[in-house]
């Protein structure tokens, strides 16, 4: 059991924002896109814990939230760098080597190729699709900052300013090991599994015969009952001390 120091829920201001939205949206699920943004602001990225909170607030399964977070590429994930560079690689930017030159400059300063994060987790670089500012290539976003014609001395100076802010130098990164930005989600802790489901998602069909047996005439059609584990409020594990894969210690 590891002590978890991260905040366990959204800050009061963000929760107030959530409650303001309740009035705006026809149902809780439709707030998910915006709630994930609240989570992103709160935790700096969409963490496992944040996904559970979002699921709880919007009344959906955590698996659905994981599906959202892996579908939409703009959400910031814990494996992205603190400074996340997104370089537009779609045709309009890529013409005349504009994308390439921006990527080359990032690599020359930070030693990062697209899809890589520096070992200290401070910087990451990725190629993204059209950022809708096609008349001023190359377009680069760094987290929520948007830049047009981002190449040459301007880009270099910007990267230098970030390095300076972090008290680092290019030499701290060049030729050093990098990690691939892994955007997969972690396996859901077992308290979200259906009974009989394993950590890796496979389901034991102990009761296979019952499934295969034909429904007798006049008998009610088979229904699948929702396992009690899923009925448990999803806040329960968050309120506990850890977000662990070990069901014993995470859940009562």
């Amino acid at each position: 059991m590891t002590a978890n120091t991260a905040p366990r829920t959204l800050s009061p201001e963000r929760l107030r924002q959530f409650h303001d939205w309740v009035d705006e949206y026809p149902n809780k699920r439709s707030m998910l896109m915006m709630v994930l943004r609240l989570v992103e602001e709160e935790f700096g990225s969409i963490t496992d814990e944040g996904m559970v909170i979002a699921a709880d607030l919007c009344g959906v399964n955590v698996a659905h939230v994981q599906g959202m977070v892996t579908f939409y590429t703009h959400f910031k994930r814990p494996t992205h760098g603190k400074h996340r560079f997104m370089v537009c690689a779609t045709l309009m930017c890529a013409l005349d080597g504009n994308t390439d030159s921006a990527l080359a400059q990032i690599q020359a300063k930070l030693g990062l190729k697209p899809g890589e994060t520096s070992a200290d987790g401070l910087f990451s670089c990725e190629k993204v699709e059209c950022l809708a500012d096609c008349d001023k290539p190359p377009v680069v976003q760094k987290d929520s900052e948007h830049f047009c014609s981002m190449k040459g001395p301007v880009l270099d100076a910007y990267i230098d300013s970030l390095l300076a802010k972090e008290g680092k130098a290019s030499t701290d990164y060049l030729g050093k090991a990098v990690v691939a930005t892994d955007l997969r989600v972690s396996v859901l802790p077992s308290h979200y599994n259906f009974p009989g489901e394993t950590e890796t998602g496979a389901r034991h069909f102990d009761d296979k015969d019952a499934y295969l047996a034909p429904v007798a005439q006049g008998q009610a059609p088979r229904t699948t009952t929702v396992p009690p584990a899923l009925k448990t409020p999803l806040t329960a594990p968050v309120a506990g001390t850890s977000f662990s894969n070990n069901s014993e210690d995470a859940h009562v």
Partner: protein
Amino acid sequence: MSEPVKTSVPFEPILTKYINEPNAHTIEHFLARGGYEVARAHVGVTDPATLVGIVKDSGLRGRGGAGFPTGMKWGFLAKGTGKPAYLAVNGDESEPGTHKDRHILEKDPHQLLEGVILTCWAIQSNHAFIYLRGEFILGYERLEAAVRAAKGKGFIGKGIFGTAFDLKVTVVRGAGAYICGEETGMLSSIEGGRGYPKIKPPFPAISGLFKCPTIVNNVETIANVTHIIKNGADWHKQWGTEKSPGYKIFCLSGAVKKPGVYEVPLGIRMADFIEQYGGGLVEGRAMKAVIPGGLSAPLLTPEMVENCTLDYESLASLGSMLGSGGITVLHDGVDMMSAIYNTMRFYHHESCGQCTPCREGTGWLEKLAHKHHSGHAAEGDADLLADVAKNMRGRTICVLADAAAMPMQSYLQHFRADFDARAHEPAHAARHRTARDEITPAAKRDSVLHGAPGVADVGMGNRE
């Protein structure tokens, strides 16, 4: 194509008139130039059907890509269903080459909001959603601030303008998915799901957001509404052509001297537009092709550009489309195999994966384009490309599959020689080789993470 163009009527930018003024995004600026007066004059006063009639008569066509007549779409809205009706404004602006809605959202958001208010009154909807792509950060901040300011003045909220009409305006942010620009994909996203398009029919006007009647319109379309209602249908029709009346914002990018956003009457010659507004091609370059309406629009050759006017019919007659108005000029130095590989990578990355012809087809197009790009294609590969592209069209839930197949077909039509020049390997040698074999290990990892294979060579953002 041969329709008379009313070029004699002088034109001043209408939608983009104030975008260069520093405070145009504030409500004070907007009110000072007569903002919200049209909404005040009509909401709760004019019969909604009259407003729909004006928009119908004006001939305004959707600016999001399909060019569907806006008034007609509003007329399809299911009535008397007992369910609320919604307006969903499409500000996803995800079509590559398009960067017009950004300027309205960032620099003149109240202009959009007034259009939203009038549209909601016209279609009798009490709730509008405005969906912005997640990357529009300034646009979101400005639009949120604008909604708050308009609420403060009583233009949005309960009993707007002192009438009995209530209106909620909710701004939703996307998070980086091209498919959320497709109208039903956007609705899925607003409903809190992955942006999966839904099968049509039923069309959103019958069953859309939360299974309620919904009108989906582009930001630019809605921004037009105020001006049309204020000045009348005939005013709008004084520009453009018979079937494509009015004016439109065009986005010019690529090899021109002055790329940018230009608002012009429809029906002007494309060659004149590139020359007069874009300043012509960059020094020392000749035109190789033009993408006329966003990346999905089939290419035009320079000869076709000469015969092309900027209206829906002219581009359709040339086998292309006006689309979202994103015009990109490719110069003679562009390697077309590199360009098509980049294009196909985009669609493969952005396919939502629901339909097999699209999910698999875009992958095949990308792989085969990559083979041509890297010079490992075999003799029959271009024919295979044509075959795959043909079989992707008209067989899927949404038209992303068509949007991927159309540019491929146009490249094959106009630049077949470029494909053949890269088909070095005789068919038997290439048979046992797949595109994946040529991908470097690093790129392979990248392809696992991003769904996009890369190559080790340079050019066109394909670099690893």
